[in-house]
């Protein structure tokens, strides 16, 4: 803790740094939010697993869902995670053009993912199943992938706000870019699990 921070502390002012994430309180806030969000996804995935294990006539997912199509979606999200770390790397060097280029690519990746998911849902709802027409299989599928899709949508909006504000970030001050990155990688991480549990197994 710097001398100034110690002085602030003795004067009863909230210290400017946190022992967990020295960069900012916001980063600790995002980690705590993600821990809570992980509980939501964890509860949904655990419920899905219990319902599926207990159901003697669960269809083989690859016979109902388009696995190659969603494999491309998975690839897209992994790529957008890479462009996200590249965006952070760029602004750490003070490269604002690089930040904008890679943030733009990340937003594009997220938007393409959403477009593909909309197409997948449209096909499924028109020709295969709705939320209630195929028992627990359809219900758990739409709830899990829908909840994740809402996160991707929020992520695209969040990334767009950071993009719009990108002129404000510099080599010294770029914490919001790191925080949006945490959120975006978490969304990617959850999709890795959903792709495995819902589509492949």
């Amino acid at each position, binding site marked *: 803790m710097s001398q100034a921070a110690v002085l602030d502390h003795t004067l009863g002012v909230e210290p400017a740094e946190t022992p967990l994430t020295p960069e900012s309180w916001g980063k600790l806030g995002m980690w705590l939010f993600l821990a809570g969000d992980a509980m939501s996804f964890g509860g949904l995935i655990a419920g899905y697993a219990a319902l599926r294990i*207990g159901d003697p006539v669960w269809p083989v997912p690859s016979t109902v869902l388009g696995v190659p199509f969603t494999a491309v979606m998975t690839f897209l999200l992994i790529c957008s995670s890479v462009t996200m770390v590249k965006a952070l790397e760029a602004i750490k060097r003070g490269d604002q053009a690089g930040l904008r280029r890679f943030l733009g690519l990340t937003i594009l990746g997220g938007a393409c993912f959403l477009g593909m998911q909309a197409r997948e849902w449209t096909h499924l709802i028109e020709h295969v199943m709705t939320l209630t027409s195929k028992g627990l299989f359809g219900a758990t599928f739409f709830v899990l992938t829908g909840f994740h899709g809402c996160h991707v949508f929020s992520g695209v909006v969040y990334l767009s706000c950071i993009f719009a504000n990108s002129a404000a970030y510099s080599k010294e001050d770029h914490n919001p870019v790191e925080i949006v990155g945490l959120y975006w*990688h978490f969304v990617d991480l959850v999709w890795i699990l959903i792709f495995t549990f819902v589509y492949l197994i």
Partner: protein
Amino acid sequence: MDTTHAEPNYMGIFYWLFGLTVAELAVAYMPIPKGLMVAALVGLAFVKATLVAMYFMHLKFEKRILAVIAVTPPVLLVMFLFITYPDTAWRLFTQWAAH
């Protein structure tokens, strides 16, 4: 804030994630026993998720206590599974015993 660690090789992580995804697809279409397939897929997904958290989310370079926050939900989830799954197991057992 001064970042003391070197930037990880992000492209290297990307190739690992891509390779593991291809491996997952291969396992999913392989004619192997269901139990083995599920174990392999869960293992591969766990490795991929860990790579994302450790390198993309920089957990490897953060304070240990932040990692404790991050692993709390999975640990609680496993506890939750052990609390609720005996119910499912019992239902499956009674179905099996009735035949």
